[in-house]
Structures are given as C-alpha cells and as structure tokens.
C-alpha cells in the first residue's frame, strides 16, 4: 500500500481538533500515541455487541468474547514472532510486566548476585530492580553511556560475569530515542548464563521485533504507545521461564484446582492472568496491531526517519539549541534545550500555539543528571505527523525563544 499521509490522518479523529485556537500538532507520541477509528470502533463494537466475561461462560456471548480475546493473543504472537501463543501474557502495561518478572525473581536471586541495567532506563525499569535488590541482597550494576547518549558496549562487557543473573535494558530510550543494540546485548548476556528482559515500551510503534530471532527471555510493551488503548500490554516470556516463575497475583482464572489445603495453578498463560482481564483492551490491542501492519513497518520507519532528519536539521538552525541523544541509531525523538531557557517555559509557550510536546525529566532522572540539566523539551513523532507540523514546531520554538530571552 502506498504511504498516503492524508488518508492516514483521516483515520485519527483527534488530529482534526484545535487547541488554543490552533490546529493540534501532536508531538508527544513517546508518551502515548493517538488512536485510529479502527481501534476506537473495535472498542465500541465489543461493548455494543459481545461484552461478556471470558474463559468460563458456556453462553454465546462469552464464547464470542473469549474467541476474540484469544484471537488477539494469537495476532500478537504472530506479530512478534513468539513461538507459542501462551508465551504472550496480557498485562496492564509495561510497568506491570516488569514488576511481574521482578517479583518472580525475588525467590530465585541470592545475595551478591548481580543485576545489570543501563544508564538510560526509565524509572519503571530502575525502581523494581532496586526493590528486588533490597529484598534479595543482589547488587545493581549500571552500563554507562557516552555524551551522544549511546551505551558504552565495552563497559557492558566488563560488567558481565558468572555473577550476572539478570540484564534489563530498554530497546529504545524514551528520553533520547537511542536504539540500543539489543541483539548483541542479549547474546553477550547469554554467554555468561544471564537472563535478559527488554523493555519495548518505546520501540514497538517504530519497529517490529522478532522475538525468536532475538532469543530474548522476556520482552514487555504497552498497547497505548502502539495506537491501542491504555491499561493493556504484554509480557512475552519464553515457555521455560513461564514454567519456572511463580504466579504474581492470586485469584480467579489463574488456578487449576482449589481446596483449602492446596491450590494448583493453571497452565500458561492463565497462571499469570489472575482475575477478569482487560478484555476490551486486549481485543482493541489486536485491532491496533492490524492497523499498524496495514500501513507497514517499513513505510512507518521510512516516514519517521524523514521527520527526524528534517526536525533535527531545522531545530539546529536555532542558535543556542542543543539536541540530546545524537547517536547514529535513533527513532523519531528529538530531545532538546535552548541555552539559558528552562524547558518548561518553552513547553508552556508552544502549547499556547497548539503544539503538544513533553517537557521535564521524562521519568529518566539519571539521564538528566548525566547531562546536568533539569530536563528537556521532547518532540516525538509518529507516522501520522507531517513535515508541515515540524515547521509549526520550529516556528513555535523560535517564537518562544524570542519571548523568553
């Protein structure tokens, strides 16, 4: 299918609204993406036509809802090329998935075992491991990054040893847009027998990871950054880990047999899906994946790279503007500051001009500490953004600079 930007934009009702009297320019896609009508329709369809609880009713509605939910799991399996559908666990989102794994390892890790994270992690990929270290006596090690916002691979290799039990790295940094070389990271970790979890919250709207090829042990992501609804995501875990890890939460759906003496757990994936899940969310996640694939990831990547290149060039023409995250492999995220101006002030002015960007530390304070800045202005582009919107951003930033200096 040829890449028709106007046709794509027409799929997103929100893109036609105005903000503060200006056409909305939505450049906060790294926080959450907008939703196409195909996804919104799937939500309306579910609640209008076959809303029922799943996996237990014999009645028709329950069967239909169960079929749709499981079909979505299958779709996600195919999309990410997992070996089995039951390796896809539905979660409430990336943070939930990370906590589920961290909790599972609290009974496995021993004192002085080592966990490696990267210097560019989101808080949700730092805090659960710190909590795990406090609980088990394990030690947290950090892969440093360089000025360009790229992980120093040789330092990572030095950190690895037979003590390393777990490695957790994000696929793409939310604050900088850097794409990490996860294939190499996973391979190196496996050489010392360590297990790897990759946080794909920022990547899955830009690239399509092949989980079997990556040979990753755990992979987490959220639907809402991929044009799907909030409150749903997935945790992929290799079958062997699914069997090894204990359940995270107890409740209905996750049991095989319950007596007051002993409960036996259900098999994968239900072992990790206690209680009534976000049925509608799971189904709409499937619709979002269909939508993204109908555009095609090659076309998405090509268009987003064009936006990134154009935005970086145009913004750098502004005197005193500095971009953070300048490595060779990055997605369509431009994190920047203007000398002498607080990012919050820029964000406030450009919002008045209808432009949505993120300002602040982006839940990645260690990165801000590294650059010794309070935060950045972050413009993050999606496939539905246009070059004209980049121009609108650049003009708004120029205006903000004029007003603020």
């Amino acid at each position, binding site marked *: 299918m040829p890449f028709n930007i106007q046709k794509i934009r027409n799929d997103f009702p929100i893109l036609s609204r105005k903000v*503060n009297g200006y056409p909305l320019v939505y450049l906060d896609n790294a926080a959450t993406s907008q939703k196409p009508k195909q996804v919104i329709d799937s939500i309306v369809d579910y609640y209008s036509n076959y809303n029922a609880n799943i996996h237990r009713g014999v009645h028709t509605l329950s069967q239909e809802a169960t079929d749709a939910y499981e079909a979505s799991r299958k779709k996600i399996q195919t999309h990410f090329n997992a070996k089995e559908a039951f390796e896809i666990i539905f979660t409430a989102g990336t943070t939930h998935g990370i906590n589920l794994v961290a909790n599972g390892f609290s009974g496995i890790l021993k004192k002085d075992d080592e966990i490696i994270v990267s210097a560019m992690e989101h808080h949700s990929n730092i805090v659960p491991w710190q909590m795990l270290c406090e609980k088990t006596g394990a030690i947290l090690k950090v892969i440093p990054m360089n000025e360009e916002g790229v992980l120093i691979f040789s330092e990572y290799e030095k950190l690895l040893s037979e003590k390393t039990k777990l490695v957790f790295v994000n696929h793409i940094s939310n604050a900088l847009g850097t794409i990490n070389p996860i294939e190499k990271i996973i391979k190196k970790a496996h050489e010392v027998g360590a297990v790897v979890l990759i946080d794909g919250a920022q990547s899955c709207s830009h690239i399509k990871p092949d989980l079997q090829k990556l040979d990753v042990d755990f992979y987490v992501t959220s639907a809402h950054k991929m044009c799907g609804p909030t409150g749903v995501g997935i945790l992929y875990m290799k079958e062997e880990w699914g069997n090894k890890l204990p359940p995270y939460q107890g409740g209905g759906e996750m049991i095989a047999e319950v007596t007051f003496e002993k409960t036996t757990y259900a098999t994968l994936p239900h072992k990790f899906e206690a209680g009534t899940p976000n049925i509608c969310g799971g189904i709409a996640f499937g619709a979002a994946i269909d939508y993204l694939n109908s555009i095609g990831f090659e076309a998405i990547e090509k268009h987003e790279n064009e936006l990134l290149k154009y935005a970086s060039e145009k913004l750098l023409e502004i005197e005193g503007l500095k971009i953070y995250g300048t490595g060779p492999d990055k997605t369509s995220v431009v994190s920047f500051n203007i000398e002498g*101006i*607080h*990012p*919050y*002030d820029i964000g*406030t*002015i450009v919002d*008045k001009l209808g432009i949505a960007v993120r*300002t*602040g530390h982006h839940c990645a304070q260690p990165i801000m500490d590294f650059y010794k800045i*309070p*935060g950045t202005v972050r413009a993050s582009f999606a496939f539905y953004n246009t070059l004209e919107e980049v121009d609108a951003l650049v003009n708004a930033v120029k205006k903000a600079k004029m*007003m*603020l200096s």
Partner: protein
Amino acid sequence: MTIEAIQEELIDEFSMFEDWMQRYEYMIDLGKSLPLIDENLKTEDKLIKGCQSKVWLNSEMKDGQIIFTADSDAIITKGIIAVLVRVFSNQKPQDILDANTDFIDEIGLKEHLSPTRANGLVSMIKQMKMYALAYQTQLKN
C-alpha cells in the same frame, strides 16, 4: 494597600492585553523584575515541590506583616510567583488567610490553577497561606 486593592490593580493591568501572547510577555517581564534573592536562601526546605521547575519561597515577619521573597529557575513560573508576591507580601497573616484568589481567573491565568499543572500555582498559594497560618499562630501565643 489592601490585598483586594492590589488584586483590582492587577486585573486592570491585565485587562489591557488583547491576547495571550501579550499577557505572557508581561508575565515574563514581571518574572525578570522579581528581586533576586540571596543564594543561601535557596535551600531544600524553602523549595516548593513542583514537578518541573523549582520555586523557592522565603518569608519573614516584620512589624506584624509577612514579607515574601521568591525565585524560580523557570521564567514564566517566576512571573506567576511575582504576581503572588505582589498580592500577598507586606500583608498581615490574617488578611492573607482570609484572602480569596478569584483574581487569578480574571487575569487569565486560570489554566495554571489545575492541580496537574506542573508549575504548582496551587502549591505556591497553599505554601503562602501555610506561612500565614504559622505566623498567625505565633502571634496568638
């Protein structure tokens, strides 16, 4: 000048502006004109916890009136706090406690009142009233 009179004055000043941009430019000017405070007053305990920009608020009691001084690392935030300092500084604790803050709406800064707004206008007012309450309690004892 009473708090109410100062608020009226501000409403007058802001009513001259035709659009948001002039309003913000004025706020920015107010921010720039806020007297600098001593660096050693910018301590952790004077910090109003906001999400994005830092605001330091200092207070002292002089002749029965509270003197507020403040600073911020973001200029628009500094403009907002300059407005508040103008309204509430050099006032009696009880008057600060009794004052309403409807004027914020009238000078077109209502959007900053939302509790999720990262500049913490709400927290600034709350902190000023907290100081007033503390001094008022001291005065009574």
